């Protein structure tokens, strides 16, 4: 029933989506662009969770749902599982992917980007970090949409302090 597209199409679509929202629709308003991109991810995650939980029995608790996200859901989306899951047992989970697929094509070398001569390293790193983080709002939205559809309202943020590993922090709303 379904048709497939090549992965490069998805990569191009995502790159262009981030670029369009950041430079055309909400130029100079990165918070609004981020919120819009995250909302798109929310709807996608909502619909994907409906599809990928189809054959499964219901989850008994939050941990089961998070484990489903780490294993089956992540495998369907990224052909691999989450590498490391940590929790503080009080509603916060950290999902760590050591080689996040959608960041695999992003250059990590920030030394090519600086244009200012005063203090180039700090501002170049900031700019690189900010533009990389824009690409993570979409997967954060996907996780949030999937968990909300499973009855778990939460907030999801991404942590890119050591690329190419990427951590998603899920805080369940009490």
């Amino acid at each position, binding site marked *: 029933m379904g048709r497939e597209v090549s992965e490069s199409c998805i990569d191009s679509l995502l790159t262009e989506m981030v670029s369009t929202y950041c430079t055309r629709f909400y130029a100079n308003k990165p918070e609004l662009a981020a919120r819009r991109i995250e909302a798109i991810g929310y709807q996608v995650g909502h*619909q994907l*969770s*409906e*599809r990928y939980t189809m054959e499964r029995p219901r*989850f*008994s608790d939050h941990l089961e749902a998070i484990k489903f996200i780490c294993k089956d859901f992540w495998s369907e989306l990224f052909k691999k599982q989450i590498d490391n899951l940590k929790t503080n047992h009080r509603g916060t989970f950290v999902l760590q992917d050591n080689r996040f697929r959608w960041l695999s094509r992003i250059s990590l070398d920030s030394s090519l980007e600086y244009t200012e001569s005063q203090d180039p390293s700090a501002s170049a790193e900031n700019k690189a970090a900010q533009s990389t983080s824009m690409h993570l709002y979409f997967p954060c939205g996907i996780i949030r949409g999937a968990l909300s559809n499973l009855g778990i309202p939460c907030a999801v943020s991404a942590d890119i302090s050591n690329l190419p590993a990427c951590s998603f922090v899920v805080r369940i709303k009490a």
Partner: protein
Amino acid sequence: MIACVAVVGHQNNPLYIQSFTEADDALKLHHIVHCSLDVVDERVNNPKKSGPTLNETFLGLLYPTENYKVYGYLTNTKVKFIIVTTHLDVRDADFFRRFHAAYVDAVSNPFHVPGKKITSTTFAERVSTIVKSFGLSSAG
């Protein structure tokens, strides 16, 4: 034969309801579906036997009325599928699985607003096909 199928969202909001009898008791069927939602909630929250049956999606016979039998199915996303049948026994979840597949495809439509009623004619056609084929296979 199957009298009526319904899809109810996780806040007990109706997403799709379709009757397959020409009779004028459509309102009665809606009422039966509405009452069965309470049974679903009760089944899920107070299991008589915990363990393997607790998290099954197919809930089985919810309750029989004098003319109808009501069967239920609860998905992981708390969406309920209810079918009301006359004289027909639903022994396994096969019908519900096909129904679930059609529902997932309808919800994946980017123009569908989650929580609002399903307006896709493709979904309505698929549901009619599933109901017809189920009726034929059980009668034969």
